[in-house]
């Protein structure tokens, strides 16, 4: 375990150096949230206080939470990392070390995610407080929510690392990344599940979109212990499934290595 902790730490440290990226991420995050504030503000000004069970404040906290998860654990870093390793032949180094490459990729991604969380969560909290005030939950719910965010990011990393491993077959897994991330964007980030037709809602609720985005964001918008239990259980189940699937895909992927110049 210590070696994976070290991998996490070195990735976290590496991110400490790229403060310009961090500042730009915060700025772009704030711009997106500001757009949502205005857009949903306009929708809610026609006199409807609640839309599909969401007040304006609920809706903004949902969007802020979903955007925080999207900004911090979009999967871009892990897919790009594996892509680059395969394309440049650096995989000759990374596969040749005494660790599991799939876990290495996930833990490296988590190093980046946790680093981003520190800043983006603060920016999100600030934006939420300024525009709609505190969400309706007590302090005892803070730790469970942080844990749910952590599980959601771990799940996202495990899933996108599998997408990244496809690079061993097709050299560039970016198209698959775009496909999955757009699916997430439409079904989990922009709207809560209640805004979709009734036949789509069960699909969303039982899909990874819910465990990563919708469920976790709903915890911030409108916390309940029942919802928390549902979200956490689904996250743990998906984490186990993705981890096992990822390890299996890696065992097949290493046999497909085709490094430049050999």
């Amino acid at each position: 375990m210590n070696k994976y902790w070290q991998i996490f730490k070195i990735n976290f440290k590496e991110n400490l150096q790229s403060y310009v990226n961090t500042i730009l991420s915060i700025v772009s995050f704030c711009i997106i949230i500001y757009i949502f504030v205005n857009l949903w503000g306009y929708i809610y000004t026609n006199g409807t206080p609640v839309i599909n069970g969401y007040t304006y404040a609920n809706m903004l906290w949902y969007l802020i939470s979903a955007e925080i998860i999207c900004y911090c654990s979009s999967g871009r870093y892990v897919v790009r990392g594996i892509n680059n390793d395969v394309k440049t032949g650096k995989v000759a180094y990374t596969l040749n070390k005494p660790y599991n490459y799939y876990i290495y990729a996930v833990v490296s991604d988590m190093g980046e995610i946790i680093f981003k969380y520190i800043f983006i969560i603060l920016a999100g909290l600030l934006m939420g407080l300024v525009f709609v005030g505190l969400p309706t939950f007590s302090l005892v719910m803070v730790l469970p929510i942080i844990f749910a965010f952590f599980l959601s990011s771990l799940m996202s990393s495990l899933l996108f690392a599998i997408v990244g491993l496809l690079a061993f077959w097709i050299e560039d897994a970016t198209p698959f990344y775009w496909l999955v991330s757009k699916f997430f964007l439409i079904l989990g980030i922009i709207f809560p599940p209640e805004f979709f037709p009734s036949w789509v809602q069960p699909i969303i609720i039982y899909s990874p979109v819910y465990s990563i985005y919708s469920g976790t964001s709903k915890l911030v918008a409108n916390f309940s212990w029942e919802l928390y239990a549902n979200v956490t259980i689904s996250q743990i189940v998906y984490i186990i499934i993705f981890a096992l699937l990822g390890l299996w895909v890696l065992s097949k992927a290493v046999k497909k290595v085709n490094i430049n110049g050999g």
Partner: protein
Amino acid sequence: MKVIEVKNLTKEFKVKKRVKGFFNRLKNYFAPQYSIIKAVDDISFSVEEGESLAFIGPNGAGKSTTIKMLTGILYPTCGEICVLGKDPTKQRIKLSYEIGSVIGQKEQLWIHIPAYDNFKFYGAIFNIPKDKLEKRITFLADLFEITPYLFQPIKSLSLGQRMRCEIVASLLHEPKMLFFDEPTIGMDPLAKETLRDLIKKINKELKTTIIFTSHDVGDIEEVCKRVIIINKGKIVLDDLMKNLKYTHLKKKVLDITSKEPIKLKNTDAFTIIKGNESQNQNATKIEVDMEKASITDVLSLVDPNNIIDISISSIPLEEIIKQVYREVK
């Protein structure tokens, strides 16, 4: 003791066929046709403990493919590999504790972080106890003369300094065998020279077996005692460096500076490389086949009073290797 044993090793790659014309390309997009390329074709060799072996060949010869199969990165199509008593395809992780690799122009170090932190990281990856790791870092930092910039971020170091740090990172876990894949690529002559000396040091002082691939003949000549030349996936030569240089091709180069142009014609025994009759030059270069004529035989054809200076040299190793490549073609 044999540390590498390779028997009838073959590696085939499936490559998409390229076709001409729009419709053929469209057809190939949906129903691609593949051709099989044998990157390594039924090779066998072994390496003794403590050897320094150069694995060379032209581009696409199969040298890197072989090295990557030895380290467990690539899976062979058929054949047997045994490295330090392990099968790299089945025991890649176990083997990684006993081998190291340095690949030119590819980094294993985190560039924003100082070398020292990188070494601590790799120490943890290889489960090296903290006190042992500290001693090892100090020892290697002294040996490779990197102490002055141990705490500088890697990105601020020159290519030569970075490469030293890369090698130190690969040596932390005291590997029994170190693979170098074109480590001097892109380096200036001085940095190359320093790196070659360091690799020799690793082989001599740390008793590490060195497997080396490079296109730079100077690297091979200075670092390795044995050479395997591979071309089109097959081993075309496996010999000691001294044999390759002095026995394999018995040719010498004779440089003559003369008062008047020397009038000689090519024969079976020698070839005029520079300054033939038509060129009317006072500097003549003659390649002599020592199996057919001696230097004295050639000199007897030249008027001694016409000679200002003579130098005799061996054919450069680069020429010998080119010759071996050509012979195989």
